[in-house]
Structure formats: C-alpha cells, structure tokens
C-alpha cells in the first residue's frame, strides 16, 4: 500500500512560482523558505498527491541537471527507507535536459551545473569561463549526453526495482524521442516500457498553461491530472 509520493526533477517539478505579495515577480526567490507554503500546493507533485490521497515529498531543485537528480534520489531513498517500507513509496522523476552537466568544484562550494545550451553562462572566474567555452567548443556532444542520460535512467530504474520501489519517469520539456537521440534498440524498448510517452511540455497547449518557459498553476494541474490517470492503477 503506497503511502508516500516522492518526486524529483528540475524547475518543472519544483515550480517556478513565487508569492507575489512577498516577492513580486522575482522568481529568483523560488526556493526561499517563506515561499514554500505558496509554491508547493501549486505544483504537480502536491496536486497529484492530493488526487491520490497520499503524502508528498517534492525534493526537486530548479535548474537541476539529471546528474543532480540522480545524486539526490540515491541520497534520499535510503533515508526514506528508514521510515517507510519499500512498497509504501512511489517515485516519480521528471527528467530535465540531458545536456546539463555537473562538475564538482571544492573551491566554490561543491557541485555546479553547466548549461551548454545557453551558450553563455556567468562563471566564477576567468579560468572557469575558459573551461566552459572549451567544453562547448570540443565536448558538448550528443553522444556524451545521450550515453549519460541512458545510464542515469538505467541506474535509477534498476536501483529502485531491486529495492522493490515502484516508479515512473517522464521528460519534462526535453524532446529526447523527437530528437532521435536513442539509436540503441534496447534503450528505446526501455523508454517505451518505463517512460511516459508524452512530455510535460506537450500538455501546455494554451497561453494560460505556461509563460513560454515554465508551467503556470493551470499547467501543473493539467499535468497532475494526466499523471493521475497513469498512476492510480499502479499503486
């Protein structure tokens, strides 16, 4: 009997919504503790948890890479298993752009996410700026991020499966399939079996669903209802 919905992802799962009374339109305050009570009920994880009638933990981080998602899932699951049985947890992962890549820099307090697709990104000093540019010029390759994305999917799938934890994956906004990223026949089969076919962004068909970058509360409600249809029979 599932008692807990555990959700991970980037801003499409964390929500890019701030309390206008406290922060106006300054979305950079999205993770401010004072914004928590405003933000969480407005994004799909809590809406879905409400539909399912179970508790929800939304552990996602805006701007996260899939590298970060994997690290947080592996860290959190073991802690959840101290309080829950494995069959009481359901995990949903909203994967982000596979192109985002993390590097660990101790001098600058830990993991930093590189966003190659932005083409420019403020770095902490000149050398790191040069590194970013060189990475883009020589190493930002589909083969790399496709391989990493496949391994991350397989890692979390088999990890959760062997712990007897039910799970469901989707792509938030990155069109992995449409881009024809997966030439690997067996991974295509994996995607068909374990991924939601539709991506979150495909649900946002109306202006009121999103601002062109992130879903609005209306968009989150639509996605929660869509996921509910898939998941209610899996609990």
């Amino acid at each position, binding site marked *: 009997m599932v008692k807990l919905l555990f959700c991970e992802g980037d801003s499409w799962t964390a929500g890019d919504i701030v309390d206008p009374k406290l922060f106006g339109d300054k979305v950079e305050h999205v993770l401010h503790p004072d914004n928590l009570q405003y933000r969480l009920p407005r994004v799909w994880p809590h809406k879905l948890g409400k539909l399912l009638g179970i508790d929800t933990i939304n552990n996602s981080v805006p701007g996260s890479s899939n590298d970060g998602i*994997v*690290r947080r899932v*592996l*860290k959190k699951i*073991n*802690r959840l298993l101290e309080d829950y049985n494995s069959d009481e947890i359901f995990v949903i992962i909203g994967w982000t752009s596979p192109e985002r890549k993390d*590097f*660990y*820099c*101790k*001098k*600058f307090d*830990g*993991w930093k996410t590189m966003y190659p697709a932005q083409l420019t990104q403020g770095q902490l000093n000149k*050398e*790191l700026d*040069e*590194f970013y540019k*060189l*990475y883009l*010029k*020589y*190493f930002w*390759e589909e*083969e*790399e991020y496709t*391989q990493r994305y496949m*391994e991350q999917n*397989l*890692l979390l799938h*088999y*990890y959760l*499966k*062997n712990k007897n934890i039910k799970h469901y994956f989707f792509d938030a906004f990155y069109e992995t399939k449409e881009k024809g990223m997966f030439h*690997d026949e*067996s991974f295509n089969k994996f995607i068909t079996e374990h991924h939601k076919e539709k991506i979150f962004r495909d649900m946002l068909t109306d202006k009121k669903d999103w601002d062109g970058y992130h879903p609005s509360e209306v968009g989150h409600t639509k996605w929660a209802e869509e996921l509910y249809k898939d998941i209610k029979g899996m609990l």
Partner: protein
Amino acid sequence: MSYKVILCEGDSWTSGDMVNPQLEEQGITWINDPLNDEYRLPKVWPYKLGTYLNDVKVINNSEAGSSNDGIVRRVIPKVLELLKENAPEDIFVIIGWSSPERKDFYCDYHRDYLSPRWETLYPAELYQEQPIEDIKKFYKIYLKYYWNIEEFASRYLQQVLLISNFLKNKGINHKFFNGFYDSNGDDFDGDLYRKYYLNKRRGLPPAMTPEFKDEMEDLYGDIDDLLYEEYLGIYGEDYVKKTFKKYCDEKEKVWSKKWVNNHPNERMHTLWAEFIYKEIFEDG
C-alpha cells in the same frame, strides 16, 4: 554451477599490457590492436581462468587504458547481446574496475585525422600529452578545479550501483575486483587522496611547497554516509576482497619479477587466474 560464457571487463590489468615484439618492430604499439590478440590474450588472466573451467567461452572485452566510464559503456550492450543467445544463468561477468579518477569526454577535436570518439582523461598522471593547445588548457583547468574526490567517488559509486543492480536484475552472477586502486571500506574515503599525495605518486612535486601544502588541507572528501554503506553492502557481496596489485605485492617482493611497464607480468596473471578461480568458482 557451470557457465557457458564468462565475460571479463576492465582496463590494462585485464586486457594485458603486452605487445608482440614483432608487431612493435612494425610500429604497432596499440595493445588492443586485433593483430596483437593472438600474442596477448593467452598471456592474461581471463584466458588462463578459462583453462580451469570446462567448456566455457571466455570473452575478454577489456581495453588497455580504459576508465570505468568506458567499462560501463561496454558492459551493458555486451551483456544484452549475450542474453540474445544465452540464458542468464549461463553467463558470468567479472569486472576489474580501474581508477575511478579516470574520466571520459566525447570529443571531435581529432576531426582532421580521426573520427569523433571517447577520450580518457588521466588526472592522476598530472600531465597528459594532448593534441592541441585548447585541450591542454581544458585539461589543466580540469585538474585545478574539478579533479575532486567528491566527483570521482560519486561517479564510482553510481557505476558500481548501476552494474550491480543491472546484472542482479537480469539474473546474471558476477564478481568485481579493483585492478590497482584501493576502494574498499578501509581506503575509499578522503584519506586515500592524502595518501596518494604523501606517497608522491606519479609525477607529483618533489618538494612540499607552501602552495601544495595549502592544497592538501582541502583534500578530505565528503561522501554520503548511507550511500557509502550501500556501496559497502555491494562490496561485501560482489567483490573479491583484494586488488590485483595487492595480490601481486603479497606474492612477489622483487619488483622486476612481477611488473613489466608497471603492469603484472605473465606469471602474475597466471597466479591471479588461479586465485580468481579459487575465490569464485572452486566451491561451485
């Protein structure tokens, strides 16, 4: 239990670091050159292990110089390929993990003379020949800022979790060992890094300059404790509890009688094959 196929993966400690002298005379120095297979493969532990087992096909799919990134990339498709023609219970996988510090990047800077391909960075060597100036800069900045135990420990743990869970889920028996890098419960923490520096391993500065000392102050790692416990669980269950290197050091004290080019000689491969046989297969 009898197996039909044993898949061995790893770096040069599994592939062997031997080139046929006749090929060398012709300028062929690439260890994994197919022309070298006939000379190399019978001299290394996977083939020798096969001689202890009846009717087993041993596939040595390892590559000299490989990173663990490369090992993971090769193991998954190879296992899926083997499963097309073999039942899971007929397959056994042995992985000799390499240094977790090695890191792969996919690049096409060889575009003038080579196809795009995976390149392995060897941070622990501190210097690595690079084809162009830009890549030298990239490598230097990587070493200065991004070569951290947090990164390679995290990556190694994820790779071990991935392959262990993947094989377990497919119903394939397997064993791991570390070729030369100590990453067991006693050693795989921040202290390992410090030890490497203190031992002045491979090309490290001869003197402890003030700058180098400052850098050392910041060497301790921070690995998530529960994830680390999970790794230790896999280590307890899946690993041969001795590195190939440590085994060689225990068996032979004289340097020249065990190593050739810092790699095990054929005699050490023979002894390791016998050890692996006893550890994994002798008692069924």
